[in-house]
């Protein structure tokens, strides 16, 4: 059984723990400039949207070159995002998005 990614998990923990612990262990250290706090606040939506768009739209061909590909997956991802925006329920969005794509694939679309 592979254990290589345990090291990655520890590295991820090493860069996460300071954000969780430093203000608790050394109060006052969190007093960052307001612009920095705003930037940190905006990183979350930007990173997640960047990942979602790239994972959905960008594919590598046989030569290793990357292209934009419009597949049936877009429908599921957009549906999930729309349901989250509407109902504020991520789990419901995931079930709907995955279900629609599974149904489309079952009838030979995508």
């Amino acid at each position: 059984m592979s254990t290589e990614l345990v090291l990655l998990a520890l590295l991820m923990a090493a860069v996460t723990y300071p954000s969780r612990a430093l203000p608790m262990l050394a109060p006052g250290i969190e007093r960052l400039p307001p612009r920095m706090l705003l930037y940190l606040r905006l990183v979350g939506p930007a990173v997640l949207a960047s990942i979602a768009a790239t994972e959905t739209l960008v594919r590598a061909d046989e030569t290793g070159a990357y292209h934009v590909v419009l597949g049936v997956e877009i429908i599921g991802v957009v549906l999930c995002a729309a349901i989250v925006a509407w109902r504020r329920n991520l789990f419901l969005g995931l079930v709907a998005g995955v279900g629609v794509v599974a149904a489309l694939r079952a009838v030979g679309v995508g």
Partner: protein
Amino acid sequence: MTASAAPTLDLRAARRQLLLDTAGIAVSAVGFGFVFGLAARGAGYSPIEAAAMSVFAFAGAAQFAAVGYVAAGLPWLPIVVLTFFLNARHLLYSASLAPRLREVPLARRALMAHVLTDEAFALAATHFHRVGRVDVPGYWIGAVLGVFIPWNLATLAGVLLGGAIVDPSAFGLDLVFPAAMAGLAVGLATGRREVVAAGAGAGIGVVLSVLLGPSVGIVAGGLIGPAIGMVMPDPGTHVWPESDLTGLPVDLDAAVDDVAHLGEDGL
């Protein structure tokens, strides 16, 4: 979120309410932990590796992001960089709780920090507000019973049971990861600046991924997008963002306000 304004409850009654709140969070954590386990299995994680992610990193969005990177065979450096930025918001939660925990022994605070998530913060802040003071056992109830244990058990269930599914893509399970990322982004897009940052991040991510590869594109989108969002005027209205472990609302604005007003209200 000041203690002085809190309608205080009897500790026993407050803990009963906390347990009810915790049960709701736990159910949601089980659902997402299971989905993470399935996604990790699909990306080639062994059960030990998936469990290590949930025990040590213990951060939903970052764990999902790592699944995508590992599946694509990308280097670890972008994963670690994104993890740092994705989880930097915990600084605000920790700063919000820190003044209330000054009397707690250092070693215990160090442990409390590891299980500080969106949900743990939301449950603890609400509970402390109800009782009008710090209740350390209440913190553990929310953070460990509500999130850490359910998330980890569900991760194991997902990664172990996922092997029984012969063709995950036939069930659309390959879509779980990008759809979860999109949904979480929408949940965090609580104002104009966040929406612009997300849109810019997505556009930059796709263009640079085509030109330079996803390892560059995704990181660039995540780091340049916020800079573009910052130039937008702030309309001053926000709705609550959602947690990255359960998708439930978490009052990040309150945490930001708490940090901004530390020292002004005697916390």
